[in-house]
């Protein structure tokens, strides 16, 4: 027998209380894992960006477009392999008002050389390239909205008002899990040619994605691109694809920070509840601590016994929480979210970092919750403790 085995047995002394406490921590850990997965899934696209791609946008804000002619200048910059432009369309299917998906007008001839992770059957690809009104949609989106190759769909534009008709010519998937498979791509030319002469939106592009030869030269090439437009009426800001994706996320950074905070607040509340449980449990055993002190145990032995107990409860709750989280997130909620909210969460899975953080935080939660009760138990007066009834 060891002192730690006494602590472990004391955990299960009041089985119902221990079980409810462990379950409480497990639920808090599930909530933590879920919220952390929301955070990591939201930023996973940015984090997993290709290192050999740069994004160029308006220096002031990405909401204001760039002149289309800039693409030719960018292609001439040394180190650039190819470049492709796109504009945010912001369309909605009126038959599915509540379904959000990314719809973009893209330069078709360069799309696949810059975004080589997109996988489209050769026949579909050919048809799409040859049909100005053709659309290429992600397989997750197609499945969700019931679209198939050959269908005609109408999108209502928000940035470009009106009804826009497309034929689904291809369904794409991806070689990388983190790529959004819920996007809707169509020909930029179709959009541009449909705009009236003199429209301020005509011959404008939202951003340019550039593929470069050497990722180590990304900084120098970015500067070279921006320098090329220094004297132009609209300056550019070029950054890595990761930084660009993160700048898009900047719009929702407050929400992300709030989620981050809430996930920690949940654990803090659970720490207080666990602290109360441990305090109650140690209070009930005051006389036993008195006996241990009488027969020679030192205050730090008592503190250690209480801390081990608290850490064991934290660890059990953390372990159970993780065991519950995996089927919930990976098999249930994750699949649902990827299918229905793929634009925001293309890959909704628990990362290793989240799992480790959850377990470590559960142990720390136990340790923190046990600190005050352990301190108080260690400071008990031996004689007063022995007099305590019960």
């Amino acid at each position: 027998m060891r002192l730690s085995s006494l602590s472990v047995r004391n955990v299960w002394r009041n089985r119902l209380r221990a079980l409810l406490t462990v379950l409480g921590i497990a639920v808090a850990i599930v909530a933590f894992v879920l919220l952390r997965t929301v955070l990591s899934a939201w930023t996973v696209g940015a984090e997993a960006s290709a290192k050999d791609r740069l994004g160029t946008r308006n220096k002031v804000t990405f909401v204001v477009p760039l002149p289309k002619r800039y693409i030719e200048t960018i292609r001439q910059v040394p180190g650039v392999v190819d470049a492709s432009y796109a504009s945010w369309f912001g369309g909605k299917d009126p038959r599915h008002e509540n379904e959000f998906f990314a719809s973009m007008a893209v330069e078709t001839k360069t799309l696949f050389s810059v975004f080589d992770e997109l996988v489209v059957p050769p026949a579909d690809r050919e048809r799409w390239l040859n049909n100005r009104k053709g659309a290429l949609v992600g397989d997750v989106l197609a499945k969700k909205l019931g679209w198939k190759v050959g269908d005609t769909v109408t999108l209502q534009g928000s940035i470009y008002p009106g009804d826009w008709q497309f034929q689904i010519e291809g369904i794409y998937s991806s070689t990388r899990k983190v790529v959004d498979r819920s996007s809707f791509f169509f020909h930029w030319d179709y959009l541009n040619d449909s705009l009236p002469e003199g429209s301020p939106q005509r011959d404008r592009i939202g951003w340019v994605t550039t593929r470069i030869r050497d990722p180590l030269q990304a900084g120098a090439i970015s500067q070279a691109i921006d320098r090329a437009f220094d004297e132009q009426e609209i300056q550019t800001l070029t950054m890595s694809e990761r930084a660009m994706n993160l700048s898009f996320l900047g719009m929702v950074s407050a929400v992300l920070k709030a989620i981050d905070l809430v996930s920690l607040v949940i654990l803090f509340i659970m720490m207080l509840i666990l602290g109360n449980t441990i305090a109650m449990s140690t209070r009930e055993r005051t006389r036993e601590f008195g006996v241990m002190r009488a027969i020679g145990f030192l205050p730090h032995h008592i503190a250690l016994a209480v801390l081990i107990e608290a850490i064991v409860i934290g660890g059990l709750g953390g372990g159970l929480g993780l065991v519950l989280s995996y089927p919930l997130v990976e098999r249930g909620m994750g699949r649902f979210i990827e299918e229905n909210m793929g634009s925001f969460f293309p890959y909704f899975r628990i990362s290793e970092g989240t799992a480790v953080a959850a377990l470590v935080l559960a142990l720390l939660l136990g340790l923190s919750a046990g600190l005050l009760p352990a301190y108080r138990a260690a400071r008990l007066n031996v004689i007063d403790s022995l007099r305590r009834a019960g």
Partner: protein
Amino acid sequence: MNSSPQASPSGSDRGAASDIAEHARPTTAESIISLRGVRKTYFRGKEPIHVLQDLDLEVPVGGYEALMGPSGSGKSTLLNLIAGLDRPSAGSLLVAGADLGAMSDSQLARWRANTIGFIFQAYNLMPVLTAVENVELPLLLTKLSASERKRRAQTALRIVGLEDRMHHYPRQLSGGQEQRVAIARAIVNDPQVLVADEPTGDLDRQSADEILTLLERMNRELHKTIIMVTHDPAAAERAHITRRLNKGQLI
């Protein structure tokens, strides 16, 4: 088991022993407990309460003494002082050669672990531990191996006649059996002094007699010095000497 479950100090006990040796003082030739002019005063707010007043007491090695007296007479306070759970407000208190008034809390704790065996009225066993584990508990403070700890705990239980209840939890034992486990726990470290605070207070007559007989054996066969606080005249009769306390003074 020989008469001494832990005949010589081991491991940390040796360190503790040398620590405690700093405070060793000569007691009288035959005394293991020596109190001279001991006072104990508590304060209720600013009001002093004199629990023990100028107490002198000599207990010989191997003595078996009962302390009796009305509630509030200072019996338990005196027992706590002798057991090193408390310090006197004034006077000198030597137990087993150690000047308890001069020792720090941690020194006192180590001294108690080596010198004193405690027997409480309410047994005070750990409900989550079996009988043998309860007896083993004080040995966790030593550097004995797990197997040696277990062996000594089993031997102590055999001495109190509970070899067939080693793996029972306290809730599975009668009151008398629980107190016997507590006595085994008290002797497992081979202490020189056993302090018993109303050891038969929660027991029926028959069980009480069995416990008193066991204490007699501890005194006679294992040569333990026993100081027992009791309200029970039958228990006091078993002791060699019965001392009476009243209003903090021996009468």
